[in-house]
């Protein structure tokens, strides 16, 4: 089902929560190196779709392949695949009892069994990449929201992931901090990292996405290149969504 240049293949994915059909038959293919931006109203299933990819949410039915490997219920396999997928959360979820450096090195050491020196070296490299190496020995509470989210991105990158998932990474930030996080994400997109991004930042979608996916009521309504999506959408629901967010 999954060819060699596919990073993620999702086939007829369904997810029921009690009383709600969060995902109602979603199929999506993400090629290696692609940046996919998922848009849609809240409650449309965007986050659930993202969380099913690294199995933070257990799917009800359907199949998912990551880099050719089919996801199963085997907890060893789940842990292994998760260690190869970086995830960035809306609320950063840094470990508050650890320093920035410890946040970035912990999983390298205990999951990937990398030596302390290598992990530290790697952590510093990632901190430079996100532009805040001077904060290495601070605690998360001493950082601004934008800095915390950049540390979270560095923490994910330090695991050398095949795929990065972003779950509304700028939604909890003050407006003036959104830019610094989006700039880091744009750099990653340019560097050819495969990314799936759930966001409300249309500017990022236009600038970085290879494809924009629009979801509503647990289904993919429209999938198109950003140029087509923003200038000439085919679906009525998409037009309505775009008119509401662009006309103010």
């Amino acid at each position: 089902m999954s060819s060699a240049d596919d990073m993620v293949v999702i086939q007829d994915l369904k997810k029921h929560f009690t009383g709600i059909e969060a995902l109602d038959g979603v199929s999506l293919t993400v090629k290696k190196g692609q940046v996919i931006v998922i848009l849609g109203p809240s409650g449309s299933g965007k986050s659930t779709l993202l969380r099913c990819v690294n199995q933070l949410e257990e799917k009800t039915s359907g199949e998912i392949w990551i880099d050719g490997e089919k996801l199963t219920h085997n907890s060893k396999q789940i842990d292994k695949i998760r260690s190869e997928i970086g995830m960035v959360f809306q609320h950063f979820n840094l470990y508050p009892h650890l320093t920035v450096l410890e946040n970035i090195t912990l999983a390298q050491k205990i999951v990937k069994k990398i030596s302390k020196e290598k992990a530290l070296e790697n952590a510093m490299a990632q901190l430079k990449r996100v532009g805040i190496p001077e904060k290495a020995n601070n605690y998360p509470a001493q950082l601004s929201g934008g800095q915390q989210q950049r540390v979270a991105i560095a923490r994910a990158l330090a695991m050398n992931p095949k795929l990065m998932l972003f779950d509304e990474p700028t939604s909890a930030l003050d407006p003036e901090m959104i830019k610094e996080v989006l700039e880091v994400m744009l750099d990653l997109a340019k560097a050819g990292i495969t990314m799936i991004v759930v966001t409300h930042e249309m500017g990022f979608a236009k600038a970085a996405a290879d494809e924009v996916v629009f979801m509503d009521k647990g289904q993919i309504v429209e999938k198109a290149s950003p140029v087509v999506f923003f200038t000439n959408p085919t679906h009525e629901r998409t037009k309505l969504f775009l008119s509401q967010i662009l006309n103010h």
Partner: protein
Amino acid sequence: MAQLTNAKVKPPRRNSPEYREYLRLKLRAAPWWLYAIIAIAILTFITIFTNIPFQKAFLFIKAGLSVTITTTLIAFIFALVLGLLTGLGRISDNTFFKNLSTLYVELIRGIPMLVLIFFIAFVGIPGVVNGLKAFGIWLTEIGVSGIGGWLSAIKNEVPMNTRAVIALSTTYGAFLAEIFRAGIQSIGRGQMEAARSQGMSYWQAMRYIILPQAIRNVLPALGNDFISMLKDSSLVSVLAVRDITQIAKLYAGRTFQYQEAYITLAVLYLTMTILLSFLMKFIEKRIQKNEQR
């Protein structure tokens, strides 16, 4: 808010009108109750060292201090282990452990502590010992004579001090379990998700991410329970364990000096609990400082 009252404000100049107001506020905020307790303790200690009957009572009763302290310490360490395991069981997805932990907590919480101590010491422990012996005899019969012989040779007479420790730790294990459970549940779901998303197993996430934060949050509550346990250790005197309460009772019964015996006893407990709560306040302050980093 606490920082506001604790902040070191530079006192105004003496004899200025502000100085009177400053002094008034300072006197109002002082912990008078604590000074009262300290005064009572000092008075009692002076009495103990100047008044011969009190001195005699004190010298007799202090022989039980080591039993009270070791019983409390050992029982608390076991209760911590039991409480942590049970607390983890309460939030576990495993149906068996979840129900077993809940059963244990609910059973203990529904029975008075004094009754529990009698029950564990005179019903529970002999029951378990007899069960193990019967199991050992059965093992020997079916040919596993190594473990079988060892089990069937267990002595019936478990010392009362051991029974007291088991009874106290079983009881407090249930209380501490609820503290640990609440502490773990106070850590946001995002922490577990972040750890799992990096490929950590459930237990790795617990050990490196959740528990360090949870335990820090519940340290004050654990300290409180340690003080409670020190006081409740007086209940084991019903098992004739020679802690300070039992010895004070003996002394009072023998000499009819009830005042001397029980005033000395009360002040001994008070001294220990106040020292412990000072220690706790000190630890809490250090934690707060760490959190302000």
